[in-house]
């Protein structure tokens, strides 16, 4: 099997199988699709150029199993201490009929509304299956919006169409204000110390919440009087205690980035069309076959993937084996311009690069200066005693 796309133009291939069937074939006939969660959707936005991730996620391939089958297992895992802590904190925040949570929403995003009292509603959202739960949530949202009372939806289920197939998302909570506004609440167990939290963690939470906002906007669009707040409420433990505190986070930027990415995900269809018919990512298949299958989809590996993608170690290994400069970091790759491999860049530094390329000229100059400075170094007297003269 060639690892290259067939030379036949995609439009001439018979489009008899609809996209869903095609994706199911890619996943493997006996493999259930792995549902896309908000974390995965948010991560897509982190590396939009990666076709491999877009296709595998779009097809619902279990990347963890795939990475293990490829021999480069992912290193993701969560400590049970963190899970226990997260669950117990969330339970505490939502305890007492959500009184504390509603108080926080009113305090930070209340916009002058009456404070929520004992009359606040907490509808029961249990239903069978994700579809049933999503329908139940949509109904509850409609009722709450027309009721004009504070309503807490605990773990609602939202549906969002991603690349032609529905993804079901479960935010920690959604609060409906008396004026019909909906606010996404994200409960995290990292602390907010003196009003500030780890920016990396807040950023991840904001990207995740933006996906929920997008999903809610679809529902709200069909409902007169409903609107989704672009400020979400981040609830965290205060300082070193277990007491909740909150801060509103504006997710407009994250929302528009994610929306753009999701719209571009229709690419999945185009990506799939370019692949050989019998390609399959079923983790039960032999490693060499999977390796060929994965190689057939172009990736855009960057070191940042290590924190976000299960397949990152495999992609890194391939990028390193292919001598790609991208494995050393995005900024470094950008700096080297058209020189895509370590070999090319080093050749340019040695003077064998394209003559008129400014990057190659700069590298040559850099190599001259570096060699000159290193030659000078041994001539300097190495001090016997390395301690400072003070």
């Amino acid at each position, binding site marked *: 099997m060639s690892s290259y796309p067939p030379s036949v133009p995609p439009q001439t291939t018979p489009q008899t199988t609809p996209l869903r069937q095609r994706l199911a074939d890619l996943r493997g006939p006996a493999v259930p699709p792995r549902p896309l969660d908000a974390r995965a959707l948010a991560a897509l936005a982190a590396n939009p150029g990666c076709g491999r991730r877009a296709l595998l996620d779009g097809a619902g391939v279990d990347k963890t199993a795939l990475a293990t089958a490829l021999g480069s297992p992912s*290193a993701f*895992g*969560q*400590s*049970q*201490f*963190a*899970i*226990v*802590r*997260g669950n*117990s904190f969330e339970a*505490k925040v939502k305890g007492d009929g959500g009184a504390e949570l509603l108080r926080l929403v009113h305090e930070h995003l209340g916009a002058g509304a009456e404070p929520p009292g004992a009359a606040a509603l907490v509808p029961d959202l249990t239903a069978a299956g994700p579809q049933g739960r999503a329908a139940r949530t949509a109904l509850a949202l409609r009722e709450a919006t027309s009721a004009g009372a504070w309503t807490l939806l605990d773990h609602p289920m939202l549906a969002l169409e991603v690349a032609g197939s529905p993804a079901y998302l479960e935010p920690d909570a959604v609060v409906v204000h008396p004026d019909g506004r909906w606010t996404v609440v994200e409960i995290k*167990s990292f*602390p907010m*110390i*003196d*009003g500030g939290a780890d920016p990396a963690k807040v950023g991840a939470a904001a990207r995740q919440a933006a996906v929920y906002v997008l999903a809610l906007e679809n529902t709200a669009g069909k409902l007169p009087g409903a609107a989704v707040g672009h400020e979400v409420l981040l609830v965290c*433990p205060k*300082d*070193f*205690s*277990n007491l909740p505190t909150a801060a509103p986070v504006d997710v407009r930027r994250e929302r528009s980035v994610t929306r753009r990415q999701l719209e571009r995900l229709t690419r999945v269809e185009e990506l799939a069309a370019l692949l050989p018919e019998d390609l399959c990512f079923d983790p039960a298949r032999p490693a060499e076959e999977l390796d060929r299958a994965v190689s057939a989809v172009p990736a855009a590996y960057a*070191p*940042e993937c*290590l*924190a976000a993608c299960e397949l990152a*170690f495999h992609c890194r290994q391939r990028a390193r084996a292919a*001598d790609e400069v991208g*494995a*050393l*970091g995005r*900024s*470094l790759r950008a*700096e*080297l311009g058209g020189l895509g491999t*370590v070999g090319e*860049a*080093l050749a340019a*530094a040695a003077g064998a690069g394209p003559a008129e390329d400014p990057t190659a000229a700069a*590298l040559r*100059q*850099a190599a*001259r*200066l*570096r060699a*000159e*400075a*290193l030659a*000078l*170094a041994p001539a*300097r*007297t*190495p*001090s016997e005693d*390395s*301690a*400072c*003269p*003070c």
Partner: protein
Amino acid sequence: MPLLNTLARLEAVRSGRARPLATVRHRHLSGRPLVLVPLTTSGEAGAPLGALVGTDRHDPCLLVIPQPRDRDLRWEFLAELARQVMPYIDAYADDVEPAERTETDPETGKRVKVETELCVDAPQLIVPSRAGVEYVRLLGRSMRFRRTAEEDPENPYPVPTQVPLLGRWFTHLAERSRVPGSALLLSATELLARHWATGQSSVEDQHLGALLAWIAPPGGENGPGTGAEAALRAELARDRDGQLLVPPAGPATDPAFDNKLLAPAMARYDAARAADDRDAADRAGRTLRELVEGQLRPTWDAVWRSLDLLRALPAGERTGERWTRDRWSYTAHRDRVRAGEPPQPRRDDAVTAAQKLATRETEQVRLDAQEALDDPLVMAGRRLAGEAFAGEVTEVVMEWSESARPRPRPLVTVVTEDRPQLADGAAAKVFRSLDGRPQAAEFVRFEGAGGIVLRLLDKMGSGREPAPGTVPEKGDRLCWTLFEHDARGGPKLPDPEQTPWTHGGPPGSATAALPLPDPVTDGDIL
């Protein structure tokens, strides 16, 4: 990343070994640093799991909390940490030398010299990684508002005096570590990454084990594998039970360690305590100590190996000058503590924040200049960027200024291959180091192929003839910089009482009161 460092990374990829980024050591290293390797409990802010601490690499002090969620055990740990660290920090407080400091006289507003004292040396804390520095800051924040029995007799949870004191010192060290070039609190990964380029990305360089493997692969220079292979092993290799062979440098632990080893051991400890079984609790406690030590010890050794590698480099000439600034910082905080000032506030007021930012900017400029002057390899980066040039003097023409007392203003022609950012017709000053002091010259014109004509402006004595050795001669190789060799501070900031309304106005009287300690609630225990 500067192109020169990029090139070093590319070379490292090719050779499989780290490549030098510096020819001298750019940070002061104490002869007796205190190494601290902390571990924390996942998902729990400020709940330490354990630590190795000490100044003797062969004899670290091991501190372990068998149940981090138990508040009393946590406080015992912090008290013990304070007992270990505070004597080290205090040991430098009383050895002083006379010094002078310029201060603004409050009455006349003039700058006057004040006789004062400066500590001869200062403590130096080394942690494994950047995350370790942030953990020191977190521990500092969690301790500095705690109250002792003396301060607050009503407090149901008083702490030993040294705990809030350590909190204040940790806060000070963490705050100081944000000043570029400072060395009171350093992380091993940042130190190593400053001096060596590896064939991996800067993201991967944050793993101390992997970084060390690139620089000094196990087995030495002629060892079996390349640094790249050793780094991969340090990063990912696991034993048959799924445990990492090289534990992470913390403070976060590996989830597999938490779930498979730590959690069951902790459950046994809890069960023994619940059953009031002293022996079983002791046994479980010992197991926990061994487990935690097993995670800490490799990192402890790695930090010391990092220090060995760095000590093998000769110290940069100007690191001493920067260490003196650290000594001033230490002395000033010592004075604040002794004067009974309250702990650092939760948030800086506008003037303090602006002052800190201004200091960091000034120190960054100073550090950039000093590192370049100390190290030809760093200077090469500045030359590549067009901010400096080196070349041979081909001609010196004596000229004098046109005044009643003519002063020497010789024209010096330097031929260089570098391409400095100078332009004909634009006035520009350049500087060279003359016996450690900057001599200024003015750019006159380009001449011929690579020729640059400069006019020397100062440091030639007071007579008509320049002092010997102050004017370069034909054939000398010189390096000129377009940047100044010393940093200038920014404009003076107002006193806190004069804070403009745009920045929140003067601090209210409310903030002058002693900040309240964090309330102790039942919610603290899960």
